[in-house]
Each structure stands twice: as C-alpha cells, then as structure tokens.
C-alpha cells in the first residue's frame, strides 16, 4: 500500500490516473444513459406546460407539431405556431414570438389563438366574468416590480392561503394588462396603449413594457390572420408532424 502511495514512477502515476478516469467515465456514462430520457422529457415538458396554459386540452405533443412563419409586418421576425390536437383534430393554435422593444430588450410571448384568429380566453377570474386571456410571457428581463408586473402571471401565496388550493388552480393567474387581450381580433391598425394613441391600458411607470407586449401580441395574432390557411394546413395531422418552413 505504502509503496503505491509514495511512488514516483511516472508510469504508475499515469496509469493510476488513467484507471481512475476510466472508472469515473464509466460511471458517468452510465448515469448519463440513465438520465437521458428524463432530461428530454423535462425539456419538452417546459414548452408543453406553457402551451398547456394557453391551449385547450390536447393529446398530442404540440411542442413537436409546429411551424415557423415570418411575421406579417415589416420587421419579419420568426413566429412559431404550435398546433394542439385532440383525436387528431386541430383544436387550438398557439403562436410564439418576441418583441425587442421591452425596457431591457427581448420579451417573448406565447399566445393562444382560436381558429378564427381571436385571442383565446382561458377562463374567468373567480366569481367574476373578467376573462383571463391566453397570453403568457415566457421570457423577459424587465425591471422587477415595474416592467415585470406587466409581464408576470404569478399567484402570490400567503400564509393565509398557503394550504388552500385555489379554485382556479388550473388557470394561469390573472394579470390585467395581459388579460385585456382576451377575445381581441387583429385589425389593420396595430394595437397600442392609450399613451401611444391606442386603446389599451398600461401600467404607469412601465409604459415601455406595456407597449412591447402589445406589439408582440399583435404580431402573433396578425401573422396568424394573414397566413391562416397555410398555418392550419401545416399543423393538421395530415402534415405528418414535420416541421415546416412556410414562406409568406
């Protein structure tokens, strides 16, 4: 034992390290193999869980059933549309795109659309008929407490309700700015906040974020409206679940 411990023989040193490395590699390869599936599951789940919130119930993997379209406006951003199927029937479409006009840059949104292009309503706030829209901000860097208020849908738990499961637990939490898009249908004029001369509400101190959200939401809805038939065609099961590029 001691001989090994104090050895200075280069060969032995090298071999020892090699053996240790091999064992480690073997073990890691085994673990990597084990976790391969769970990790991919986890990844798709992340997209799907967002989609689940904006789409009606589906039984396919909408993360895989998607199509990328260039937006209808001048900027020409990518808009990704996901198709939700139930019994191989297209039941809902969600669009995903970004706006670069957020206070701190990129804001990414996923918007659930009805087949006719209006923005979905996923439910109503408890006991009221105020709708909750299918608009979800999936990525943003806005100022916490300011721009983030406009973007985030979070259900604040408090000590008083921490054990209570909310009645609307399966709905996304309400957010008045995002919810005002419920049932809107894109027209010719882009949606704008009051401050920009439009009609949408905004949060004082976070006008820029509000504007950006209006922009991205309109982009998705508008792109869908103008490319509607192609998108629907691409997302119906006959399209064989292949990702397609649709030229506008």
């Amino acid at each position: 034992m001691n001989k090994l411990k104090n050895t200075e023989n280069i060969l032995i040193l090298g071999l020892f390290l090699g053996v240790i490395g091999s064992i480690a590699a073997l073990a890691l390869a085994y673990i990597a193999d084990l976790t391969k599936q769970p990790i991919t599951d986890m990844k798709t789940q992340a997209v799907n869980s967002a989609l689940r919130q904006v789409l009606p119930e589906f039984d396919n993997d909408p993360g895989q059933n998607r199509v990328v379209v260039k937006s209808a406006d001048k900027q020409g951003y990518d808009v990704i549309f996901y198709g939700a199927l139930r019994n191989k029937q297209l039941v809902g479409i969600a669009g995903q795109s970004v706006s670069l006009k957020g206070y701190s840059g990129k804001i990414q949104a996923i918007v659930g659309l009805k087949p006719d292009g209006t923005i979905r309503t996923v439910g109503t706030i408890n006991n009221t008929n105020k709708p909750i829209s299918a608009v979800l901000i999936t990525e943003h860097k806005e100022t916490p407490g300011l721009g983030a208020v406009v973007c985030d849908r979070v259900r604040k738990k408090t000590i008083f309700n921490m054990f209570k499961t909310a009645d609307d637990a399966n709905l996304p939490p309400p957010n008045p700015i995002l919810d005002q898009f419920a049932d809107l249908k894109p027209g010719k004029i882009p949606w704008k906040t009051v401050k920009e001369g439009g009609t949408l509400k905004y949060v004082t101190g976070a006008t820029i974020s509000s504007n950006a959200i209006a922009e991205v939401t309109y982009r998705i809805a508008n792109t869908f409206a103008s490319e509607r038939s192609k998108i629907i065609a691409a997302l119906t099961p006959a399209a064989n679940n292949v990702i397609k590029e649709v030229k506008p």
Partner: protein
Amino acid sequence: MNLLQDFTRGLWKENPILVLLLGMCPTLAVTTNATNGLGMGVATVGVLVGSNLVISLIRNIVPKKIRIPVYIVVIASFVTAVDLLMKAYAPPALNDALGIFIPLIVVNCIVLGRAEAFASKHNPLRSLLDGLGMGLGFTLSLTVLGGVREFLGSGSLFQIKVITAWTEECMLPVSAPGAFIILGCFLAGMNYLNIRRAVKRGEVYIPPQGLGCHHCRLCDIGKITEDS
C-alpha cells in the same frame, strides 16, 4: 462522541460560510430566495457526501503525487452526476435559478477542502458524517440567507407571503448589491456575537480578515515546487 463532533463541526463552529468564508459564489448568487438556497445546499450535500465517501475509501491507495488530480476527478464526477440528476428530476424553475452554479460546485473550496483535510485522513464513516455535517451547515446558511433576502425583499418565505401588508416589493435585497450587503451584515452579526462572548471570557476576538481558503489545497494541485 468523535462521530457526533464530526457531524456537528460543520453546523456552527466551522460553518463553511459564516466562519470559514468558503464557497462565496453560490452563497451570493443563488440565495435570492430560500428555496434556491435549499436546492443549492442539497446539491452540494450530495457532492460532498459522495466525494468524501469515495475519497476516504481510496485514500490508502492513491499515490501522494497525484492525490489532488485524483480527488478532482472524483469530485467532478459526482458533480456531473448531481447535475444530470437535477436536470432530470428537479423542478425547471430551480434548475434555471441555480444555473451554472451546479457545475461550479466542482471548484467550491469546501468540497476539495474536506476531501483533502478530512476524507483523505479518516475512515469512511467519519468522512461521511463530516461531509454530511459540512454540507448541512452549508445548506443551513444558504437557506437562512436566502430566507432573509426573500423576506426583506417581499415579506415572504419559500415564496409564501408572510406579511401580507407588505405591498411594495423591495428589489434591493434580492439584487446583486443586496447579496453582498446582506452577507456582510450576516458576518457582522456573527462577529458581534463572537466579540460579546470573547469579552465575557476576557479574551480578544479578531474578526476573520481573510478566507478560510487555505483549507482547500486546490492551489497545491500537483504542486511540485515551493517558492523558496
């Protein structure tokens, strides 16, 4: 008795964060709330316990010269394992929050420090307990720090609002500057307690001026020469 000490040492007397000031990066980065602190802590415990155990097992056959590289390989393997497991099974939000700090456990001085200072000299049981104790001390500090930051920021703990009247969220404690400042105040609190105790016993107490990073012999990795 010894075993108990092995376990409790890391909890308070040699607490890796508050006393030895080790592993400051994850301490500051991931403690934006109690949950993240806890998550990071648990990940570190996994690595610490595993590597301590394995290193203790092979301690008698590792050639002295390549001791540190061997330890590093062992530790890195455990970190990879934990990383993969977290990616597979931990909630995505936690994974996002911990970000690159899971891979960085590999260079956390506590892990190699314990390997070198303890596991390479003691039997597997004691090494295991030591790793567990140190890890729990680390976890505890991270969780408390995360809790304090979260509470100061929004009056909640583990994302549950504790003070409901707290309407305006304060971003300072959760921000990067806040992390430094609140940890600084933590240390000041520790110093205050230690000073008081020292005064009572008629001793002098000198607040830690530097890091306990000499506990980690990472710098010695394959060290051949000493500047004379």
